[in-house]
Structures are given as C-alpha cells and as structure tokens.
C-alpha cells in the first residue's frame, strides 16, 4: 500500500519534559488513522510538529514522497496537508463563508476569486454549514466552529487532513453526524489522521489506531487489536 505520511524517530522536548519520544508512524493512502492516548500523551504536540506549527527536535517526516520536516506550515499546507486545532482557531471577525474562502484562496497557488467562491459553496454544502454561511464565527455553536475549521482545511484541497479532537463536547447525535462526515471525507479521497477521546467514534471508523503514552508509541493496530491489547488497557483504558 502507498504511504501518505511517514514519520521516523520524531522527538520533541520542552525544557526537561520529553513531550514526544522517538515516534515512528506510517499512515497509508485512503486510511482513517486514529491517534489516542491519555491527556498529555503528546498527541497534539505530534500534530504540531507534523504541520510545522512547532519545529521538530529530531526525526524526519515524509509526506506523499516529500520531506516536510523543517518546512514552514504554509508550505506544508500548500503541499496538501490540512489540519484543525484542538481549540478551534477561526477568523472571528469574518462570517462563516469568508473563513472558508480564506482556505480556498490561499490553500493552493493561482486560485482565482471565482474559483475560490465556487469552492466555498461546494465545501459548505459538503460539511453541512450552508445554513450558517452568513453568521459570524462567535455566533455559531462550538460544535460547528470545529466543523468550520474542518471546512476551512478542506477548502485548501488537502490530500491528508489531521483532525484534533473534532468531536470534543458534541452530543451523541452530533458525534454520529461527525463520524458520517469523516467517513464521507475519506471516501472522497482524503486520508485522515484524527486525535480523539470519543472511543465509540474511534473504534467504529478508524482503520488503524496508534496509542501514545508519555510521548512514546506503546501500541498500534486495528481497533480490535487495540481493544484487546493488555498494555493499552492498563495504561490507557485502565486509568478511567
């Protein structure tokens, strides 16, 4: 199978704290890949290093055949890697549609305004935010703010989308909607890596899962393997 993202020996420390330790991760094209672990396990730090938000201490990241470790986030984005943030980061002074327009305009080189505007309609339809398109960001519910982040990333036409706790704070029916949306996104040809605490979602839609604990990868496998793994139950599920 073709590999979409290949991380080798990725590490990061903040002062004396080793946040991410020598993590290897390989994500295949067309996969939904889950990244789980207790709070503080280093999941978001790992995302931040992949997307270029923070510099990588050591290790390499190959994205779709190109070495992206050391690149700035805007270049990584234009290569086709989109992401959402754990705490939604939207353009609060703009209406919903313009947030998406920003992604469409800047995500790829040489986008005309007309092209970008048609991408906006397409993406808003796809994620189901069309009814809220003229609302300002602070006026829409938090669940939709996270979905807006996803929409903005989708507008950049990514090959790989990294979603950081997109289901946090959603009610069960909204979780169902989000799961559907993520599966639909994958079916449209976009590989997905997601950090998530909602186990039902992770176990249902992920093809493979990796578990981080204290910055190190302690397990990797299919949802069934992860659910049956003794180590995982001990360090992760056992805690709750």
């Amino acid at each position: 199978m073709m590999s979409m993202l290949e991380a080798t020996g990725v590490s990061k420390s903040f002062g004396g704290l080793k946040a991410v330790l020598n993590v290897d991760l390989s994500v295949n094209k067309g996969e939904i890949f889950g990244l789980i672990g207790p709070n503080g396990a280093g999941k978001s730090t790992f995302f931040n290093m992949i997307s270029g938000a923070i510099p990588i201490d050591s290790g390499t990241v190959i994205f779709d055949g190109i070495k992206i470790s050391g690149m700035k986030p805007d270049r990584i984005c234009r290569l086709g890697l989109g992401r959402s943030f754990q705490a939604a980061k939207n353009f609060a002074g703009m209406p919903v549609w313009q947030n998406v327009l920003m992604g469409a305009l800047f995500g790829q080189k040489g986008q005309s305004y007309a092209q970008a505007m048609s991408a906006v309609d397409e993406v808003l339809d796809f994620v189901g935010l069309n009814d809220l398109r003229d609302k300002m960001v602070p006026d829409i519910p938090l669940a939709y703010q996270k979905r807006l982040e996803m929409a903005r990333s989708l507008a950049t036409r990514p090959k790989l989308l990294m979603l950081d706790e997109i289901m946090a704070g959603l009610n069960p029916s909204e979780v169902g909607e989000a799961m559907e949306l993520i599966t639909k996104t994958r079916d449209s040809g976009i590989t997905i890596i997601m950090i998530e605490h909602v186990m039902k979602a992770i176990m249902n839609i992920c093809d493979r899962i990796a578990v981080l604990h204290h910055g190190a990868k302690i397990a990797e496998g299919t949802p069934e393997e992860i659910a049956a793994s003794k180590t995982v139950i001990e360090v992760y599920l056992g805690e709750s």
Partner: protein
Amino acid sequence: MKWSGLKKEFQYIIVAIIVIFFAFVPLFGSTYAITLSSTIMMYIVMASCWNMFSGPAGYISLASGAFVGLGFYASGFLSTRFPLPVLMLAGGLASLVLAVIIGSITLRLRGVYFTIFTFCLVELVKAVMTWYEIMVVRKRGLNVRNFGPNAAFYAMLVMVVIALAVVVIVRKTRFGMALTGIGESEDAAAHIGINTTAYKVSGFAVTAFMMGTVGAVRATMLNHIDPTSAFNMMFSFLPVLMCVFGGMNTFLGPIIGAIVFAALQYNLITKIPQIYMIIFGAIMILSILFMPTGIVGVYERVRKAIENRKIQKVGGHL
C-alpha cells in the same frame, strides 16, 4: 477589514471632496493655510498607511518615527543636488530597506514585544545619527533646501492620493485578506497556506516606504533638521492616536483622526506648548475607554441603535 456603515461609494465621495478641497487651498489660502494643509496631509498619509498594516495584522508599530526620520535625513543629505521627487524616493527606499531588515527579524515577535522593539528602534536610530554627527562629521544637524510651500504642498497632495489608492487596493485584494487573517488568527492563517512572514514584512515595508516619502517632504518645510526633530516619538504616537480616535480598521477613521489631530497640534503647539501633550494623552485614554472603535464606530453604534428601535416599533424580534 470592514467598511463602516456608510456605503463604499459614499466614503469615496467624501474622501474625494476632502482631497479636492485641499487641492484648491493654494489658490485662495494664506501661507499659514498652505502649511497647515501640508501638515494635515502628511498625517493623513501616515495614519492611513499605519492603519493599512497595523490595523488588520494587529502588529502595533511604533516605528513610524524612525521611517519619517530617515525621510528627513534623505532630504538633508540630498536636497542641494536633487529635485524633490528624488528625495522622496530616496527617503522611501531607505525606510523600506530598514523595514525589511527589521521586519524579517522582529515580526516573529508577537504582541507587545513587537511594539516595544519598534519603540526602541526610533531611539536606536536617533542615537546612531547623533553619534554620527558628534563623532564623524562634528556638526549638529543639516540644512535642508526649501522648495517653497507650494512644492511641499503638492508633493503631500500627490502622496495622499497615492496612499489612499494603495490603501484601497490593499484592502480589496488578497494581500489585505491575508493581513486580516494574520490579525484574526496567525496560526490558522499559516495553516491554510498564508506565508505569514512574507505578508507581514511586505505590509510593514509598504507602510515604511510611504512614511519615508512624506518625511522627506516634511524636512524641506523645516529648513534645518537634527536627530531630535527627525526621529521624533510624536511621529510614532500620532498615527496610532489618530487611528484609535477615528476608528481602527476603517477607511475614513484615520483620515478623520489625522485632520482633527494635525489641526489641533498645529494650533496648540504654539499656544500651549507645555500642556498640549497632556491634552492628547487625555483624549487617547478617553477614546480607548469610551469609543474603542473610534468616531466611525460611534456613528455605527448610533445607526444600529436607531435601526433597532425601528424594528422594535414594528414589533419584530431578531
């Protein structure tokens, strides 16, 4: 960036009337009126251009004094040999180069650190210039050739037209959108493919260029310049004050602020030189407290209040 409640076209018409009014001042006005108008126009350029970058991007720059000062010295060094447009270009380019260098280093600093650095930059450049005059040339200040009040006046007028055109173009294109995105959320902007450093440095540099050019013109109105008059913190603070007072991130706000404060300063600096700064400080504090969105924001609030009252009368509910 948002347009205030007034229609775009209407705002253009207001500005066009202001510019045309200024254009006729030399035909009827006294020398006093011409000099005052030139000063006002200088501040229109400075405030509008400051607002063009610092408004949407959220990087509050206090470096204006350094850029204007470089314009002063470009005129000081070159005025005996070259015509006014060359001096303006030289002042603008010198400022642009400084802005690119400084911007590449310091625009990584976020929030208040950038502001502090730009504040210190003015003092730094002033200190270097003072050292140069004391230690190297051993002569304080420079004489600047005066091209006459009308030359300076028309140069400022041309710069106002250019500056407002640049402001409109920037806010209408993706350049302005990128700056707004950076101001709203720099992380989000970077992660949708906006090269934040490039946009910030270019925005800062364009602003610096414009300030350098008007600085060069300003120097020709003064006959003599020295580091204290050139690298003057007032040039840094006034554009901020004008934008806060008039309304940040609006098209008309900085223009209104520039006209009000330039006129005030021009009149008060001779009459009550000791306390006019106190008055400005008080106005600044009151503006921030009671009209954080400036005069333009107050207008908008009043308009919305009236509209709401209308809706309530009809019995509608939003």
